[in-house]
């Protein structure tokens, strides 16, 4: 963590030196991108913004989104807004927008023809409230990936699995070789996210939407979802020896071959890249766990709080344009391991896994993600449930499903 902070700080100082002419306007940008791959990506954004003659003041907040968001929100509601801030687009900033604390970007969007270039359309939809656009999506992050360590499977002497079921079947062999079959970090959002991925992969797209979009509690208590809980039960048994907290520590177990695999979003790919690993040779990725090849269009977006200073407001417009600039999009997303939000950019430099993602995106096999479908309140309750489920073997599958159905019944 220390090292990552340092990297972020270095990136910030590097950005300082690029500062343009005297007319430059300082704009503080807060975000929670502090791991190695993330810091490298955010430095690209800073470089692009500084090239416009303005100055990116880096406000990285270490921890994770869960730590950073309360700080960002209390700064905005407390009357000390930053120039721009990251959120996951969807419902995290919904109330801030409704309270009139965020800038309406519709003019910039019309000028840049965002409605035509941003793909898939659902991204811009989740930035839109009452017909006005309030945020700039910068990337598409999908959770639906299973990252496998080639080394671990070689050591255990089993062939690389092609989907989740084969992976579960290979688990005993991995355990015998002293390898943790599945790495799941101790933080609540990781176990909760893993379940959501299983819901979409094992249950299928319709099941996923019926539970989280229609919030059908009866269905959530039914046999379709019971199958998913069975899979989650497999997952927690495979993960029981993971003694790490952070997601990147868990990814590191896969990178070093101490764990067989990890269910994690495509941001894990940045870590593989920083470690100098090659997709296909050192690690293998299975979108949709190899069962249901869809990707969710969650991701990161920048919101711009309303500022009094006219110069800063102008700089906000420039930043909004810069973020969607094709060149920035490519440079940023290659480092970040995420997919660009524009369909018209050239991504030949992308690696195997990203290309798989792009192909799925081109087919249009996309689903909305929980950030867009559920309120933070429901998300938190879900996290509490799955944190308990993964850590406590005594909590039975039936009991957990019952509590899950109750949660869906009261979800908003």
């Amino acid at each position: 963590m220390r090292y990552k902070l340092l990297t972020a700080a270095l990136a910030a100082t590097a950005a300082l030196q690029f500062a343009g002419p005297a007319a430059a306007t300082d704009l503080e940008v807060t975000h929670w991108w502090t791991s190695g791959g993330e810091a490298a990506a955010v430095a690209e954004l800073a470089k692009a913004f500084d090239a416009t003659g303005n100055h990116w003041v880096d406000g990285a907040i270490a921890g994770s989104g869960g730590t950073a968001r309360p700080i960002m929100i209390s700064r905005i509601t407390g009357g000390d807004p930053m120039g721009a801030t990251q959120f996951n687009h969807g419902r995290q900033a919904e109330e801030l927008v409704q309270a009139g604390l965020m800038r309406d970007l519709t003019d910039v969007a019309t000028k840049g023809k965002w409605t035509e270039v941003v793909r898939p359309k659902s991204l811009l939809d989740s930035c839109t409230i009452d017909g006005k656009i309030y945020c700039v999506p910068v990337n598409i992050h999908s959770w639906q990936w299973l990252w496998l360590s080639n080394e671990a499977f070689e050591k255990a002497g089993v062939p690389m699995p092609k989907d989740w079921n084969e992976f579960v079947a290979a688990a005993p062999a991995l355990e015998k070789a002293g390898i943790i079959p599945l790495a799941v970090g101790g933080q609540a959002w990781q176990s909760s996210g893993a379940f959501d991925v299983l819901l979409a992969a094992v249950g299928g797209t319709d099941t996923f939407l019926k539970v989280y979009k229609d919030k059908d509690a009866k269905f959530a208590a039914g046999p379709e979802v019971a199958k998913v809980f069975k899979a989650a039960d497999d997952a927690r048994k495979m993960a029981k020896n993971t003694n790490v907290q952070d997601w990147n520590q868990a990814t590191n177990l896969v990178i070093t071959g101490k764990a067989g695999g990890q269910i994690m979003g495509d941001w894990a790919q940045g870590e593989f890249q920083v470690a100098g690993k090659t997709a296909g040779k050192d690690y293998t990725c299975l979108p949709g766990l190899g069962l249901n090849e869809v990707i969710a269009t969650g991701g990161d977006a920048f919101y711009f709080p309303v500022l009094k200073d006219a110069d800063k407001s102008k700089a906000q417009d420039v930043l909004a344009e810069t973020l969607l600039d094709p060149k920035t999009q490519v440079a940023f997303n290659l480092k970040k391991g995420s997919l660009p939000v524009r369909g018209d950019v050239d991504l030949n430099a992308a690696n195997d896994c990203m290309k798989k993602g792009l192909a799925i995106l081109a087919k249009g096999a996309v689903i909305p993600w929980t950030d867009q479908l559920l309120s933070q309140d429901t998300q938190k309750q879900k996290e509490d449930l799955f944190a308990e489920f993964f850590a406590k073997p005594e909590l039975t599958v039936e009991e957990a499903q019952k509590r899950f159905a109750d949660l869906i019944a009261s979800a908003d």
Partner: protein
Amino acid sequence: MLPALRMQGRERTALTQPADEMSKSERPNPLFRNLNAKVASIPMILTAVVVFVGGTLWTVLYSFTNSKLLPRLNFVGLDQYYRLWATPRWLISIENLLIYGAISLVFSLVIGFLLAALLDQKIRFEDTFRTIFLYPFALSFIVTGLVWQWLLNPDFGIQHVVRDLGWTSFSFDPLYNSSIVIYGISIAALWQGTGLIMCLMLAGLRGIDEDIWKAARVDGIPMWKTYLFIVIPMMRPVFITTLVIIASGIVKVYDLVVAQTSGGPGIASEVPAKYVYDYMFFAQNLGQGFAASTMMLLSVVIVIVPWAYLEFGGRKRV
């Protein structure tokens, strides 16, 4: 009363009252007694009323609303409380608080008093020992938590050291075991807190008159009996102060848990203060957070009110 103040009072009465009533107004209005002191305490009174009482009432009021990210006066009755008491995580938090509270109360009093009594035996290097025992208190709970997180980590803490010494089946990983994790947290809290309790107790012991000891010795009362039946009852005020300090530490425990386990494994080491924080800021559900904090306040009130009544209500203090 200060002479200057009395002068002021006289002048005022001289100005406002007819001269023949002057003798009657010799006794000033009680409201103006100690006027300087009263004026000086206005800022603190305002702080207490506006920030503490006002903030508390505001929180209780909004706990009956369905406020999400921003406070809104949209009343929903007791819904937030029904939901709170149906939430497994809250129930676990309460249970943990009770266990943690019982442990810290009993052990910090017992260990603190024993250490103080031992130090009180006119031993050599007393200052050195006192410093050593009090030192952990200089660390914040966050630092304490991190240190003990490492010590209790099975891969490079105590378990690892003992296994390296040859006992390969030795197992000690309280922070990774749901059923005993709260005891692991209590160990760190005791390590940090008993030093202070020891100092308070030592101060109390030093306050006991030497003659009492002599008298007890003359009567042939054994030392442990002297402590138990004479000294401890005489230290009642010190015990009450200590009790208040320990109890407030128990109810507000938060940072220690965050640093050691962040509530894990799963939700096995959650505490009420963390529930409040998580639901107010992570879940963006102020109403639920306020309801939980109101319940915390209520638990404090239930403890404090009967005690305050017994202490101050029944009889006049001498």
